[in-house]
């Protein structure tokens, strides 16, 4: 067979324990979502590293571009008033 189709690439996210969010663990190839979950279990949780797995085909992820990172995140650069230390309170007001 010459026009073979390769298994697509999936990104794997693992929740290490309840209370924590899923975190990107890596990627793998699988024919479908079910196989991606099974492979993710075998590859990324061999030592009980997870209680929940998300998989998503890599081609469905849209990422921001690092070339435009400066302008994309620029709006946050000059808003010091979003931080608690911007506000002066007298020492008598202790923990706030």
């Amino acid at each position: 067979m010459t026009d073979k189709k390769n298994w697509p690439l999936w990104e794997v996210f693992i929740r290490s324990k309840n209370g924590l969010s899923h975190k990107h663990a890596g990627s793998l190839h699988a024919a479908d979502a079910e196989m991606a979950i099974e492979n993710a279990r075998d590859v990324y949780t061999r030592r009980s590293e997870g209680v929940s797995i998300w998989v998503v085909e890599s081609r469905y992820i849209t990422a921001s571009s690092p070339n435009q990172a400066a302008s994309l995140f620029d709006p946050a650069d000059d808003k010091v008033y979003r931080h608690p230390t911007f506000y002066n309170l007298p020492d008598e007001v202790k923990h706030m």
Partner: protein
Amino acid sequence: MDPKQKALEAQFQARIDADEKIEPKDWMPDAYRKTLIRQISQHAHSEVVGMLPEGNWVTRAPSLRRKVALLAKIQDEAGHGLYLYGAAETLGIDRETLLEELHAGAAKYSSIFNYPSLSWADMGAIGWLVDGAAIMNQVMLTRTSYGPYARAMVRICKEESFHQRQGYEILLTLCRGTEAQKQMAQDSLNRWWWPALMMFGPSDGASTHTEQSMRWRIKRKTNDELRQQFIDATVPQADYLGLTVPDPALKWNDERDHYDFGEIDWAEFWNVVKGNGPCNRERLQARVKAHEQGAWVREAAMAYAEKRQQRQEERNINPRGLKNLAG
């Protein structure tokens, strides 16, 4: 080089010098990308081919305990190969191409796996020495400049230490056994010591990639530094086993605070790299055979997934469950 390119490269080097990590979509010099693809794929191939010498002993492991440990180690190696292929793929090369390069003999893997595993003691020596040498290299690589490679290394290092300990335990058991068992352990050390030292690659003067890789912080230590570090850590472990390291020139040097050691047989090293080691052909044939014989499984799984998806889409257009919903 045109000025724009030059500016980009200077910017890139400044990021490296500031110890920033480079991530997949960041701009990088073509040569940096190429070097990483070569190094990471070599590393991945080594993990995968590395399963072969150990697979040789699974059915002959002396106890169930040893057998499950060996199987778990081999499964880890497959996983390590996968993390690394994944890291390489972030650089814009696909898995199929990487495998084709391996199977065509265009991509290299660690020469250590071109030596045969002749006795059960070799399972001990491989874990202790081969994984031990790999750990030296990999611990350094957890700080490599390319993010996905560094992250793969962190996972691998966490898992690798069990490999080395299980290997050492095998040898320790043999060394505390009968005279014949101890002899088996010594014979194994005699065969694996020098190839293990060669795993760090040519010495710094002869290494074509080291200088640039150090500048890009892909590597953080030179081949000779890592080799020395490995020898210093390993010789006392051999002493504890009561085994003799097969190097008459090996001697502690108080002044250098390191072991001095004998000259490596570089002719042998290059000969194995060039494909003339004891098992080069056999290893590659085994990989190609496994890949070819597994082709129908990969194709069947893909066909099944496509068929299921197609049925799902048909159901979405003409939902047969409508009656139930209405009821």
